[in-house]
């Protein structure tokens, strides 16, 4: 997909979604899903060994690729918020597939900030986080969205705040409470 072709419809869809039209998201999400997966494949292909990106960087790259130049700055955070949701879904789909196909055993854990920790499979952590976020969305959708955009979309607190329509200090406070709840839950 070339950005020149997609920029206009994506912008229009994004505006429609921001203005509360859920069908716009339904059209945007498959587009983003395909794009993000294609980017992941490209980066991990043999043409570029040693070059790879974390999930959040893919979200930003997808933005650059899809958005094109005529994207308004204000659209950026909304795009990234939506792309974060898609990245979450993509990672979860992948984790589910991985779990089905995986060899048994293995006391290996996704490490948070440590190089090494012992525990569960990374996929299990990811699925647990996904479930906890879904639970949180039921009683505090905004905090769940803040976490989603920061963790899966690599947005800064300031960007996440803008996408959610709150001040940065409010977002920082809310992220702290949301993280504590998630950690207590996981």
């Amino acid at each position, binding site marked *: 997909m070339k950005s020149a072709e997609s920029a206009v419809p994506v912008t229009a869809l994004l505006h429609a979604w921001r203005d509360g039209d859920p069908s716009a998201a339904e059209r945007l999400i498959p587009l983003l899903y395909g794009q993000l997966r294609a980017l992941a494949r490209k980066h991990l292909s043999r043409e570029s060994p040693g070059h790879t990106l974390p999930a959040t960087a893919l979200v930003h790259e997808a933005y650059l690729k899809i958005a094109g130049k005529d994207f308004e700055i204000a659209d950026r955070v909304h795009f990234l918020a939506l792309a974060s949701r898609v990245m979450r879904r993509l990672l979860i789909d992948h984790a589910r597939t991985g779990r089905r196909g995986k060899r048994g055993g293995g006391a290996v854990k996704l490490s948070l900030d440590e190089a090494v920790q012992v525990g569960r499979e*990374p996929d299990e952590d990811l699925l647990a986080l996904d479930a906890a976020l879904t639970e949180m969305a039921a009683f505090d959708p905004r905090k769940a969205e803040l976490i989603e955009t920061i963790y899966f979309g*690599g*947005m800064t607190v300031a960007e996440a705040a803008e996408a959610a329509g709150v001040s940065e200090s409010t977002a920082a*406070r809310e992220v702290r409470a949301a993280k504590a709840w998630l950690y207590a839950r996981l």
Partner: protein
Amino acid sequence: MTPERWRQIEALFEEACALDGAERDVYLAERCGEDPGLRQAVEEMLAAEERAPRVLTDAAAALPAVTHWFPAPESIAAGAEIGDWRLIEPIGRGGMGQVWRAERIADFRQQAALKIIHAHLATPALIERFRAERQMLAALTHPHIAQVLDGGSTAEGLPFVAMEYVPGEPLDRYVRGRKAGVEERLDLFAQVCDAVAAAHRSLIVHRDIKPANILVAGGQTKLLDFGIAKLLGGEPGQAALTLPGERMFTAEYASPEQVCGGAITTASDVYSLGAVLYELLADRRPFDFCTASMSELVRQVSTVDPPPPR
């Protein structure tokens, strides 16, 4: 949970965050008097925040990078033989690679923690540097430093390091679990200082000193991963070998020059030792990074004095 209940918990959590130990207890007792469930929920969150790493900038730290989508080579599995070692069980995985407990094929009594570097990090330059550094690290012998035993590469050419296997517990967990007194904590800390001093005399900088890298077994500490951060972190002025967004240090213990990307010296280790000592004595970390932004992290570490422990 209902939104109303959550608002209540959240408000108390925020207030309690601003208070210290005894004040916090009084406050919570006052506000939750008739509602033990409420207090428990808030306390669980406070405890979770204590345990959790305070900085989680993005999914690079919190979630698998996309490299994780591609499984490790099949050759890395229990029972596989790599160099002189046979893999027993995986004991960890991080951004850099996997860690396995292994035993020497010719000698079942010698165990090692084998660190195997991710394929995507194994560039020719890294492999070369690995070889050179490994020699130096192998010469670093100290009772409180986990010894580098061996190194080489797997059949696919992935570099690995075999380090002394230490069946211990991380320092912070160890002292909390034992409710160790100040004297015992200081004694453990002095052992760590000895180890760091010995390495510094050989001009080897650790670069990532933190409780998780200090294991304790039977009252004896072992500092892990000496120089590993440097092996993987890239030289100044050279592109780091880590993924974007993945840092080679742990924010809570990192010195200002580390968070700002300056030159790392033995003084950086001394700073990290200070942060570890603070945590040992105060039972909390010097800084509380609830922000997710790198620039805020840089600002705090570089310009703000940690609050004095009480």
